């Protein structure tokens, strides 16, 4: 292959790929130097680097820590509840084929279709009638509803890899519904349920639109505090919290890469070796 052709066929696509990655990453990485600024407004460091804004995050009186705790609690509760509901629906729909599962699916997935702002206006009316505005329960219920679609999609995807006749096989072997649920279906869904739980957690963790409408002074989630902070002032603590979240995400990804993927790829590569040796 001539050098010119080589450049066009391999070099250019490579360059395009790197540019795309840069396009995705550079704006995110900008927050890190900004978080280290020595000024008390959003700017790049000028006379030196400072960790003052990180220190401010850890000051309980600034409210960042309590907001993180609030968001964490609501996200954990929403994640558990949404995953349970989604798993119950997905497994039910997997076992009982018919018209009801697909109708119910539209209802469960509707938060994906309805614009959040419209949803928010509706929830304000509803929660004011039930006295659930600015309450833990009110926020958690809304977050569960918003998280269910993603959990349903994640769990449904891992169920679609299962042979539906496994249920018939289990019944013919004498297993009753509780056994089939606990010992046949659930053990095969661990990755789907894990993915669903993480997606549900993230949905709740960064939900802002509906939360803004249905909370006030009592419940201040982290996104809400960030929002307020942007509206009030341009505190570099914002950049600090963004950097902290970025680092936490990066850390989680690295842990996943080194702990789980390594274990997973080992058990996945084994069968190939094994099958070669024993295929009859």
């Amino acid at each position, binding site marked *: 292959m001539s050098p010119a052709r080589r450049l066009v066929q391999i070099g250019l696509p490579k360059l395009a790929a790197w540019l795309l990655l840069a396009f995705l990453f550079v704006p995110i990485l900008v927050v890190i130097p900004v978080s280290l600024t020595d000024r008390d407004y959003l700017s790049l460091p000028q006379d030196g680097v400072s960790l003052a804004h990180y220190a401010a995050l850890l000051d309980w009186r600034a409210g960042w820590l309590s907001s993180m705790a609030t968001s964490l609690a609501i996200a954990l509760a929403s994640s558990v509840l949404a995953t349970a509901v989604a798993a119950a629906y997905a497994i039910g729909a997997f076992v009982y084929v018919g018209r009801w599962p697909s109708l119910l699916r539209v209802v469960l997935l509707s938060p994906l279709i309805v614009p959040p702002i419209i949803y928010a206006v509706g929830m304000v009316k509803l929660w004011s009638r039930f006295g659930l505005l600015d309450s833990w329960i009110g926020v958690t219920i809304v977050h569960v509803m918003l998280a269910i679609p993603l959990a349903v999609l994640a769990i449904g995807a891992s169920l679609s890899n*299962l*042979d539906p*006749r*496994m249920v*018939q*096989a*289990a*019944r*013919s*072997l*004498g*297993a*009753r519904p509780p*056994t089939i649920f606990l*010992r*046949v279906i659930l*053990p*095969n869904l661990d990755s789907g349920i894990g993915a669903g739980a993480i997606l549900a957690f993230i949905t709740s963790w960064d939900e802002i639109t509906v939360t803004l409408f249905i909370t006030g002074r009592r419940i201040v989630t982290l996104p809400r505090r960030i929002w307020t902070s942007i509206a009030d002032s341009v505190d570099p603590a914002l950049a600090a919290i963004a950097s902290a979240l970025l680092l936490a995400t990066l850390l989680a990804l690295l842990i996943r890469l080194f702990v789980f993927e390594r274990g997973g790829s080992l058990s996945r590569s*084994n*069968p190939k070796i*094994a*099958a070669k040796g*024993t*295929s*009859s």
Partner: protein
Amino acid sequence: MAFLDIRRLRKSYGAAVALGGVDLSVEEGEFITLLGPSGSGKTTLLMSIAGFIKPDEGGIVLAGTDVTDLEPEDRNFGLVFQGYALFPHLSVRDNVAFPLKVRKWEKRAIAERVEAMLALVGLDQLAARKPRELSGGQQQRVALARALAYSPRLLLLDEPLSALDRSLRETMQRELKRLHRETGVTFIFVTHDQEEAYAMSDRIAVFQNGRIVQIGAPRDIYRNPASRFVAGFIGGNNLIRARFSPETGTLSLLGREIAAPQHFDVALHHRDGDVSAWIRSEDIAIGGAEAGFESFDVTVIDRAFIGTGERIAVRTGDDEELALVIPDGAADAVVVGAPLQCRVRPDLIGFLLPD
């Protein structure tokens, strides 16, 4: 009364009739095959026996007990699928132990039985493997061991070999016959492959449009197909048109006019003169007339090497297409497009009522 009695079983899905009143009696320890094209009702019958399909009418009686309304988990039958439906998260050992744990056997009894079953299917070395680490044939053996572990009264097999390649299929056919012999369990086997049915079954039930149209030993079905459909479906047969002339007592077929053979039943087969006839591919030979043979002229339209010999397609004078199978080497004089003379013994021609 037979071991398994199926009486007037009916099942419809809207206007589509899946089972149109099926009667079937199976003896204990028998290997019976339900043979038919897809959509003929054979799998519907198997799933009704397994309990996954509730029939609209009719009943299933096993050893004197009506099981028609029993749930599948209460029937104590083994079931083996085409896709094996093994539990992917369990090892081979735990897959086989599953039905025993469900039945709350003692731990030691489970371990012993699992060892025995894995030895029976030749997988004792692979007990710790996961299903995805096994080949298709090995997975099939696990499915069989799992379905036979609790000594079921019946083993139901739904096209279990159709996902395997040809050589493995023949190995598994022998394996299934051996398991049938050694366990003594009654096997009900569903397939659309007539060779598979011939190779393994004590009896074959041929399905067409939700009904059993013929039931009998493989040889009887091959030699005496009861209808045009059966003669066509069981393979190896040429179906041709013939015409009977009562005045002369002769049949016109293959472009010839020949005396009706002795087994031609005028009263049964003769309707307006039109008759259906079949000739097996291996009963047609190349060459001119000999004593006891009738010869006829054909044009060769194709020849194909099939390993054990050659399959030759010809067109007769009355525009019928025939396939004949001849030993390799005997076809040297056969040229595509050229005329050829063939012969057949009239007493090997079969006659049928039109469907």
